[in-house]
């Protein structure tokens, strides 16, 4: 058998299911996750997306717990540091509504004045749940349509 020449490109693993379209969001509503970024980062490979999302869930759950503790203890520098790290990862994955909340916590932490940090933290924790619900609806493997051909 001949080897594939260097310049021939091969198909990737099965791609992730497309976002469900049965309940489209209004055009001006910002979605919790930029799916294009997730797809781009994983070349659309469903397993890689799930692995990355699991990694994000685990890391963010831990960071939110640290943030909650730091806000309660009024430890501004800890709030800044954890919020900064969490915002970086979230921005990388395109968590569009989550990031501004984390940036606000980072800002308040850097200023040493956690004036509304408790409320912002609550908003961030709620948005994290939205993200989980949003992704759960989109990353569930879709059943192949009846009669779909396999190549």
């Amino acid at each position, binding site marked *: 058998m*001949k080897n594939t*020449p*260097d*310049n*021939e*490109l*091969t*198909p*990737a693993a099965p*791609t992730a299911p497309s976002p469900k379209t049965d309940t489209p969001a209004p055009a001006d509503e910002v979605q919790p996750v930029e799916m*294009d970024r997730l*797809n*781009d*980062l994983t*070349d*659309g490979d469903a397993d890689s997306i799930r692995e*990355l999302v699991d*990694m*994000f869930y685990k*890391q963010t759950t831990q960071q939110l717990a640290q943030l909650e503790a730091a806000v309660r203890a009024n430890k501004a520098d800890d709030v800044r*540091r954890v919020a*900064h*790290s969490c*915002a*970086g*990862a979230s*921005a*990388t*994955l*395109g968590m569009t509504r989550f990031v501004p909340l984390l940036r606000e916590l980072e800002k308040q932490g850097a200023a040493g004045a956690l004036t509304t940090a408790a409320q912002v933290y609550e908003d961030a924790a709620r948005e994290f749940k939205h993200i989980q619900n949003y992704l759960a609806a989109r990353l569930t493997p879709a059943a192949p349509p009846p009669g779909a051909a396999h190549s």
Partner: protein
Amino acid sequence: MKKILIIEDDQIVSNVYRNKLVMEGYQAEVALDGETGLKVMRTFQPDAIVLDLMLPNMSGVDVIRQIRSEADFSKLPIIVFSNTYLTNLIQDAWKAGATKCVSKINCPPKDLLDLMRRTIGGGEAVSHARQKTEGAPATKPATVVSEADAEFQAELRKTLIASLPATLATLRAGLQSLVKSDTEVARLKHIHELYRRVHAVNGNAGIAGLVPIAHLAAALEALLKEIYENPKNINSSTLRTVANAVDFLGFLFERGPRSDKQGIPSASILVVDDEAISRRAIIYSLEKAQLQSISVEDPNAAFKLLSENQFDLVFLDVDMPGMTGYELCTRLRNLPLHKKTPVVFITGLSDFDNRTSSMMAGGNDFIAKPFLFIELTVKALIHVLRGKLQPRPVTGNHPASNPQLMPSKC
């Protein structure tokens, strides 16, 4: 005689391929856009189609979908030319029914000919067929074929190299217009124009075998496409990267054939970021250009690695516990191995003060977080290619020669 339809908007590329295919005994037609291609297909009834995915108006993927929807052409071989850096587009082409996808970066006419012979057969040169009927030897001597190919390729390259100064002037003028544009509409128009020009550079360099030029042009084309389609990503970081890439294309153009033999050189790249998902994004962006890297989360561990090994490029997160990226950069500049190693800071804190800090710490470049993956790819390509074409003396261990330093996943 087998018939091939080439749907490609670049007239130089399409004519070069057509001439080569005709010379080798195929019947070939050219269409310069998707709609025309579909019309020609119905009358010409080709045995295969060669299709550029990046067409104006009707996209290449839509052309494939239309072809597959017509019963007469549902099994017709479609060879797709694409940009390696547009992975999602390539996946769309596969899903739409492409038969084969080929990278435009390095596809001289001879490679297309070989691909056609493997896919649909045919392609015996006219003179060859005549010889056969006259009882001459059935095969051309291999040396004659390769000499003719080499001559054809040399002529192509000569023509392209002669046109590079004019091409560069056009690219620079396009960049100037982009930088000066003061409305979003104007900016998008100039990005699109620059994108079409860079697309042409990619195709022309690819057929002429000028691989580094084709690589960088392909990555820049993908970046321009990304910011054109998602204008929210147009910012000082992405525009600076576009400008750097156009500048560096100028450097590659000046070198011309001196840099054409190799693809992307192997390089040792160190990634330092305390956050796992960001590390993964950086590694992924590097892998887009087949660049391998070593990644670490602890800046102290990074400093130890830097003390003992030569690296060709370093990406540094700025805000890390224990030691900031700026501090690490200042320290690594004191190492004899890394006085001139390119250092790129990755930071969400991309205001002017931090740019000043990055330069004072000895950094060469910076990229704003969250970065576009292809933007980081373009930056890495520029630094790696520049480093290889203007080499620094290697005085220490290279990670490639150290079995303990395997390219890492985060």
